[in-house]
């Protein structure tokens, strides 16, 4: 009980507070949440992509295919585990494990809210970048160990791609770090610190030094798509060229681990983008529309969203085909709506209301990124390998360097001016 009260009154993350119990609970929660998010991403991607492509998408397993990801997961788990004969078995086995490990480890420092992170370390962003770069290794391992041409080419492509896009990505992040040093005077590498400096400056870094902040964000946004191997940069798993890229030879559970890692990676880089430029857990207009009433008004939004979802479910249940075979589905959907409604009620409670605020906004921002990912995938063709490299090295890298230098110059413009004046005098 003590632990609970301690936690509830804590204003820092469990890691910072040295609260091992809650840190462990948070790790478990984060892993579960990410896995669930990946499952729902799976459903959403299929659904949204289907709607872009004027089809229904999954409709049969559960109402509107809501249970489809679970069915998929079960299918993948019970599938025969195939290891190609020529494969290097140990590495083949290790690759998906490593990729999942790296993908989940990054979430240790992601601040879902001021207190909602496993821990906050003062080199948080470096930690994230470092760990997420490790996923290259597992992809190469998977591609190499398969002992097959397509995976090998996929692995080579993806390693080249990830390595080259990491550079502009890091440059863009350095811009954000530079921006965080304004006003406070000291820049920080801590994820929470960066969000807090955005709060302190009263604006998100995407709007700082216009258009430099936006440019840095744009560079990061492009690089992160390439970093996660998504369309239009999905060369490593380009279906029409390399069949499935580095995981061509994987199936069943191992494949599902790659799948999990890919989506977890998407969530991770989106979290970085949100933290660095979009104010992390801060709600929009926290600078302009502040004050008690606005806070109160905004604090109802999570519950409202859940209610809207619940209403959607109930409406959907009403509009289900009136066919006897849809009885269970209709009931299920209605039940799900009711459960959501109950959750919404819980979210209305005063103590809970404020506490979920942070997470809510963070989740909303990440969800926007996820939607963009899917939207891009549904719209754009795929770049060729050399063109991708060209964009990375010849466009993004110089651009990011320029933005970095300009940001630095703008950041020290007063000092620069005084120094110049001194020289001139």
């Amino acid at each position, binding site marked *: 009980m003590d632990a609970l009260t301690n936690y509830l009154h804590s204003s820092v993350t469990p890691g910072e507070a040295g609260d091992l119990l809650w840190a462990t609970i948070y790790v478990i929660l984060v892993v579960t949440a990410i896995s669930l998010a990946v499952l729902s991403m799976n459903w959403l991607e299929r659904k949204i992509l289907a709607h872009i492509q004027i089809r229904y998408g999954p409709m049969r397993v559960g109402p509107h295919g809501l249970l489809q990801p679970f069915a998929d997961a079960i299918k993948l788990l019970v599938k025969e585990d195939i290891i190609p004969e020529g494969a290097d078995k140990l590495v083949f086995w290790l690759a998906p494990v490593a990729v999942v490990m790296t993908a989940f480890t990054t979430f240790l420092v992601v601040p879902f809210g001021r207190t909602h992170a496993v821990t906050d370390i003062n080199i948080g962003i470096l930690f994230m970048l470092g760990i997420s770069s490790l996923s290259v290794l597992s992809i190469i391992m998977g591609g190499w160990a398969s002992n097959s041409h397509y995976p090998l*080419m996929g692995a080579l492509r993806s390693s080249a791609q990830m390595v080259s896009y990491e550079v502009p990505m890091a440059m863009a992040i350095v811009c954000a770090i530079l921006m965080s040093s304004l006003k406070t005077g000291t820049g920080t590498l801590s994820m929470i610190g960066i969000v807090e400096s955005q709060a302190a400056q009263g604006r998100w870094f995407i709007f700082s030094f216009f258009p430099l902040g936006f440019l840095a964000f744009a560079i990061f946004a492009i690089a992160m798509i390439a970093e996660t191997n998504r369309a239009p940069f999905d060369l490593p798993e380009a279906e029409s060229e390399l069949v499935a890229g580095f995981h061509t030879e994987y199936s069943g559970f191992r494949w599902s681990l790659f799948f999990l890692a890919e989506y977890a990676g998407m969530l991770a880089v989106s979290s970085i983008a949100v933290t660095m430029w979009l104010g992390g857990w801060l709600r929009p207009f926290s600078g302009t529309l502040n004050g008690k009433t606005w806070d109160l008004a905004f604090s109802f939004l999570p519950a409202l969203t859940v209610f809207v979802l619940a209403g959607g479910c109930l409406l959907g249940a009403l509009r289900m085909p009136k066919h006897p075979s849809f009885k269970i589905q209709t009931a299920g959907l209605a039940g799900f709506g009711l459960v959501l409604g109950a959750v919404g009620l819980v979210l209305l409670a005063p103590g809970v209301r404020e506490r979920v605020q942070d997470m809510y906004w963070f989740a909303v921002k990440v969800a926007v990124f996820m939607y963009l990912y899917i939207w891009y995938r549904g719209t754009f063709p*795929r770049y*060729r390998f050399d063109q991708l490299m060209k964009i990375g090295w010849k466009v993004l890298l110089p651009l990011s360097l320029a933005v970095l230098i300009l940001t630095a110059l703008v950041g020290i413009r007063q000092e620069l001016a005084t120094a110049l004046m001194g020289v001139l005098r």
Partner: protein
Amino acid sequence: MSESKFYETQWQETGKTFLDSSELVLNMGPQHPSTHGVLRVILKLDGEKVLGTDCVIGYLHRGVEKIAENRTYVQFNPYVDRMDYVAAVSNGLGYCEAVEKLLGVEAPDRANYIRVILTELNRLASHQVWLGTHALDIGALTPLFYCFRDREEILKIFEKYCGARLTTHAFRIGGCQYEIYEGFAKEVLDYCDFVLPKIDEYEELLTTNRIWVERTKGVGVLTGAECIALGATGPVLRGSGVKWDLRKAQPYAAYDKFEFDIPIGKNGDTYDRYLVRIQEMRQSVRILRQAASGIPEGPIIAKVPKVLRPPAGEVYHSIEAPKGELGYFIVSDGSTQPYRVRVRPPSFVNLQALDKMVRGWLVADVVAVIGTLDIVLGEVDR
């Protein structure tokens, strides 16, 4: 010897595996997402650069020409639909006209108009399938569905007209079997109005899209002379700037009665071929409008005997199929069965250009070039 054993011994004997050599032999297909069926291309690669290719075809070989020798002229008609199954109507048209030539009969005007309408609809449908799959190969997932949505309307017209959607068997020797149904002309005209904005939409998605342009411009270049030397016809030839279309050069059916342009490209690259095909779709709509609003009255089938015994002799007749020149060389010995039917398949001949087009390019371009050649393996292999 099992595969791994093979590598092991190879390793022990030479100290090298395939990974050690600077050349990589990649086997693309016959089961590969973007070889449009069962094409198998053996690629010799240096890294990702293509040093050479070898096409292995024949996985879908059904011996259509042999079947023809064992069927009567009428009975063989449905089989030609199975060659280029994306443009079955064109196949049927070519065959029927070839046999008509052999018989010395001519299809009546009304039949010719119906034939033109259906073949042009089929050209649209074929180009839509091409665009969808080509875009899919290059990574754009969505145009495929838009194209198939619009093609569906064409297939509905086919289904209403002749009772089948894909392998239509729409024409008979001497004309058409089916009278047009009520509202046929209106449906075709409505479709013309429906499809033009959709073509604009495809263009919005792709034509100016920088990724699309980068992926297709300058890729798989064939000059006009190379096209002619390689026998490539259809949009491949026109994309290289040779203004040649059998519908104009040697008009058949009722094509001499309609006004339309032959769109041509300049650079002979994948992008130009794309533009040519898009323009061809618009021209098809133009022909459809003229044809559907002027279907003459009259019989739909010429007087042909129930049992066809064309006089001994041989003819070659070719039409402009969506993929290029589709020719039929038919030898008759005066009996009810053709002595020899030779199909000159455009896809088969065009596919020869693949090697020329992809040398020195990357693996991703092989996929793009296979797409731009618009091959149908049913026709390549017959």
